[in-house]
């Protein structure tokens, strides 16, 4: 099983971790781990972005299949829904 070394951080960059993960982990796994370990608000949805490729990392697909490489920085961004009131 391929392992990849990546950096995961929040959008405000107040939380950052260098981790080694199996390439079979999905985008959803990474988001869930970030929410759990960093106590991010659970009433918010998050998307994952690969800052090297400027592409979103899809939650359902593995990191490996989405071309995530050693050294990549994945950013956990909140999905923003407000704007009206």
């Amino acid at each position: 099983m391929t392992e990849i070394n990546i950096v995961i951080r929040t959008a405000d960059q107040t939380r950052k971790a260098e981790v080694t993960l199996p390439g079979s982990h999905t985008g959803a796994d990474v988001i869930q781990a970030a929410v759990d370990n960093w106590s991010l608000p659970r009433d918010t949805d998050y998307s994952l972005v690969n800052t090297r490729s400027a592409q979103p990392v899809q939650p359902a697909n593995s990191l490996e299949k989405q071309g995530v490489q050693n050294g990549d920085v994945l950013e956990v961004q909140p999905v923003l829904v407000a704007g009206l009131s």
Partner: protein
Amino acid sequence: MTDRYLRHNLIDWFDQDLLKTLSALVVGAGAVGNEVIKNLCLLGIGTIRIVDFDTIEVHNLTRSVLFTEADVGKNKALAAAEAAAKLDPYCSIEAISGDFWDKISFAKLQEASIVFCCVDNFEARFRINRMCSLLGVDLINTGIDSRNVLAEIFPFARDPDSACFECNLPPSTYQRVAERYSCGWLQKVSFEARKIPTTAITASFAGAMATSLFLYSFREDSEPGARRLFYDTVTGSASKVNLPMNPACVCCSTQSAPRLLVRAQRVIGQDLPWLKSLPLDVTVTVSDPILVTWEMPNCAVCSSTAPECVLDLASNYNESHTICTKCGLKQRLAVIRDQFSLGELVEKFSGRPLPGKFLCFEGDGTQIVVELQDGGSE
């Protein structure tokens, strides 16, 4: 008039004449909508159409640049249009009080060069995105919280294969939307939407980023495809994300090309002449969930009675309507659907109005989209 745009004229790529020919539809005239409208007026756009059903409350005034205390209680679209007309008397501004889904016809949407989505919930965004992707009208979506801002462009007009708003949404979004509904897909009576704190700072950033995406999209060197700008107003960190199309997208993957748009009266039967030439087994998908019948399968008193035919928008009902009108027990089962066979529609519901904004079906490899209209309108 020329002097008004003297500084714009010094910008080599700024095409003031083009901007004067363009028309923007702003959906949601709250904090971000105010900023977008203000920017469009100051830039000198030709036409703005503003739609909002909501009224101004006093707490809106800390984030809404176009509203004053005297506007509290007024409709947001009307008040924003009034203030915007003072910013630019040369801009043609129309305010529409009501819900986008009800008030904006296909024709009105197609008149827009751009649609700005400045609403505060996912369901409204789903609908706006669906209409824009279906009709090929460029869409800019915005979102804010107390420190972060996003603006996304979906250039459906120039790039029919562009990703749509739903292509890159996490599945948790749909789970969150589902929380508003009971297991039978009726709205929960007790559900209270989460209040998200926002500020004038994030609203103004969002308005600026959204309007900038619009302005630059008309440059020859503008980037193709859908993309998202994300900005943290506290740290100043920003990112740009290119948004790829998702072949499994619940919205745009079902919209096959080529497409034919038609309008018809919503009464099923003879008033729908386009139905006559189709095979009866063709599947018709309606744009809105429809409450077809109430059934009483578990009620000892009423289970033997025939289901009560409703054929109305499911959104007009909630959990409180599951109480049986005959026995008073909360046992009615709502049968909610958005797909029918053509034969079923004609056989069971002939002569009745089909609720919903539009319906779709496949015919000879073409997707037919029928906008449903009430008698005599437009």
